[in-house]
């Protein structure tokens, strides 16, 4: 498979996944898009192995490696910060004094509201977007650093 054919193939897979996402929303079946996404990624992985044109060498591998490492280094801090906040919200870490002016016994206090599941989904989506933006940003930085867009007289 040629490199350009591979890129077209990725585009087709993305369109198919988009259509499946729409359909799974229509029929209220989240399992469909989840399984389809995994299958799509596996198909792309195997298709990439059959690309005959050279698309990766040691320089591009180094760019990918460095971008991935930097993304991980930044992302885990953000992820931990969010996770600590989420855990505190779930456990409702007590502030002292807990409730001023109340003389209710501790066993009479209602359990804290747990963060709604829908909210968790949005936050996960936000974190995923953050990870993608970080990766693209670092990739652009290292690609520029290692001469990706250098021009020559040839």
């Amino acid at each position: 498979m040629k490199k350009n054919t591979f890129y077209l193939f990725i585009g087709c897979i993305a369109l198919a996944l988009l259509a499946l996402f729409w359909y799974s929303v229509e029929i209220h079946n989240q399992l469909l898009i989840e399984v389809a996404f995994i299958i799509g990624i596996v198909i792309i992985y195997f298709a990439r192995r059959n690309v005959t044109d050279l698309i990766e060498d040691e320089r591009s591998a180094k760019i990918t490696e460095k971008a991935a490492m930097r993304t991980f280094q930044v992302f885990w801090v953000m992820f931990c910060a969010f996770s600590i906040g989420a855990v505190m919200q779930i456990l409702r870490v007590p502030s002292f004094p807990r409730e001023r002016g109340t003389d209710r016994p501790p066993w009479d206090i209602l359990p804290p509201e747990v963060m709604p599941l829908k909210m968790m989904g949005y936050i996960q989506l936000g974190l995923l977007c953050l990870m993608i933006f970080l990766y693209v940003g670092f990739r652009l930085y290292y690609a520029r650093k290692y001469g990706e867009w250098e021009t020559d007289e040839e």
Partner: protein
Amino acid sequence: MKNKIKVFRAMHDMTQEDLAQSIGVTRQTILAIEKGKYVPSLDLAFRIARHFNVNVEEVFTYESESRTVEID
């Protein structure tokens, strides 16, 4: 790290694309090495030197630009 890839290419009348294809890298990699933007691995350096039938020292010259080690 300085190199004379451009000189050797000219001596062998090769384009960057020709050299890149024969040693299995992209043209951008050859360009980045020539411009000093990327320091090749030992394996790639030996492949380049072997392609021109010379020792690796004849193509690549080590020159420390500063005493500090850059951690990027």
